[in-house]
């Protein structure tokens, strides 16, 4: 049973590791917290009440002799029963109304909110920005103090869009467009999780949410490219490929990228026949656009996520290729 661990996005040093961040409220939905603490306080009150009465009874009325009868045989007390029916009823109705009001605020995005689209697939998030040709994967930038509204789309199974610090969550349902909005109030980087079980790598379907200032946002940080294509390629690798492909020669879900570039492999075609391919520009592009077409036989049972041009344009695939070249001893010169 103990085979190997899947790679984790959580171990990398860039992951923010301030514990406080998880509880820190960073959006305008402060009412969620207020209500939570109100209900919590009510619950603590009742819990202490019950425990104290119980504890007192057990000590005071414990059976000391075998024959000891009960100190009282009261079977009902109408007034008491009415009180403990009506008071909880009033309390829960208050909680209901309060919770409904909070929910209603969270449902209706204010006019002028910036409209984003989040597309979930197994197992990554792609974010599309309003009137912007570019997109970002597993990283999202939003502007502080500016309402951000999202249309949620799934291309496969159920997912759920959850940013704890923003207090928002919404399932991403295939075949439907769900929506959600929040207004970030604190600068910083926050966790975003998938909270609807979606298969193997559900737990590493993770994104970072950067809340930045207006001037930062206007620099379109999701479309920043380094002059060095290898740096860009490495960034793409750690966003999209790292979960299944190592760079140290170890086999994970898919083959390692170490020494992959320029090597030759026997691959199996859809019709079952086999042929030998060389890992070059054409093969890498094809494997990204249509991963199941030509696979090494030992990886046949593993499905690779498919990336179309909307998510990973050819230009960015080339960055990745440049990065792959650096991982081969021959630097891509081998024939």
């Amino acid at each position: 049973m103990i085979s190997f661990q899947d790679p984790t996005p959580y171990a990398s040093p860039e992951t923010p590791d301030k514990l406080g961040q998880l509880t820190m409220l960073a959006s305008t939905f402060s009412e969620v917290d207020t209500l939570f603490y109100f209900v919590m306080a009510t619950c603590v009150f009742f819990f202490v009440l019950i425990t104290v009465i119980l504890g007192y009874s057990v000590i005071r009325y414990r059976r000391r002799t075998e024959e000891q009868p009960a100190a009282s045989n009261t079977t009902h007390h109408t007034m008491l029963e009415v009180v403990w029916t009506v008071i909880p009823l009033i309390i829960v109705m208050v909680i209901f109304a309060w919770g409904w009001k909070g929910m209603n605020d969270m449902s209706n995005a204010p006019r002028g909110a910036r409209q984003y689209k989040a597309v979930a697939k197994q197992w990554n998030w792609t974010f599309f920005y309003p009137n912007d040709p570019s997109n970002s994967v597993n990283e999202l930038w939003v502007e502080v103090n500016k309402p951000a509204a999202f249309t949620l789309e799934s291309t496969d199974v159920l997912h759920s869009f959850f940013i704890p610090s923003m207090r928002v969550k919404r399932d991403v349902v295939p075949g439907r467009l769900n929506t959600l909005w929040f207004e970030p109030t604190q600068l910083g980087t926050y966790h975003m999780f998938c909270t609807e079980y979606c298969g193997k790598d559900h737990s590493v379907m993770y994104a970072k949410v950067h809340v930045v200032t207006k001037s930062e946002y206007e620099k379109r940080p999701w479309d920043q490219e380094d002059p060095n294509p290898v740096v860009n390629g490495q960034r793409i690798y750690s966003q999209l490929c790292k979960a299944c492909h190592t760079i140290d020669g170890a086999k994970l879900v898919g083959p390692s990228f170490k020494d992959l570039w320029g090597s030759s492999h026997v691959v199996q075609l859809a019709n079952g026949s086999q042929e030998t391919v060389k890992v070059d520009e054409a093969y890498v592009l094809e494997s990204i656009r249509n991963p199941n077409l030509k696979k090494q036989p030992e990886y046949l049972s593993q499905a690779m996520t498919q990336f179309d041009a909307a998510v990973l344009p050819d230009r960015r695939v080339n960055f990745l290729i440049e990065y792959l070249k650096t991982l081969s001893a021959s630097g891509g010169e081998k024939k």
Partner: protein
Amino acid sequence: MSHPSPSHAAHDAHGSHGDAGHHHVASAGLFFNVLVALLFLTVITVAASRFDFGSANLLIAMLIASVKAALVMSIFMHLKWDTAVNRIMFLSSFLFLSLLFLFTLADLSTRGMDEQLQRVSAPVADQWKHPNPSGGGAHH
């Protein structure tokens, strides 16, 4: 829930004889009349479907079917002469079923009203394939 009174409970559990209620033998003539009524209502069902009552179509069809169902239940199934407990138990299934109908349909019909979500007109992109499209569960 209604429960028999204490005195009836004892009887209910140990009723000896005389509770002829649930051994009722209905008259053959009654059965025949019910059959005729059911066949007649079937004709009505078909006839009613020829007219367009708009959104009431479904309601009308269900009403006629309910009358037929009520006849079958009360006469053919002897529910008319059966004990209160049996009647309540069986009919409560319709009550709870109506809860399932009520809430799921209420959800569906009010979904579009708050711009919360819209149905995607196009089907889900077919680009995503699961590893074993024949999907035979234990049968592969």
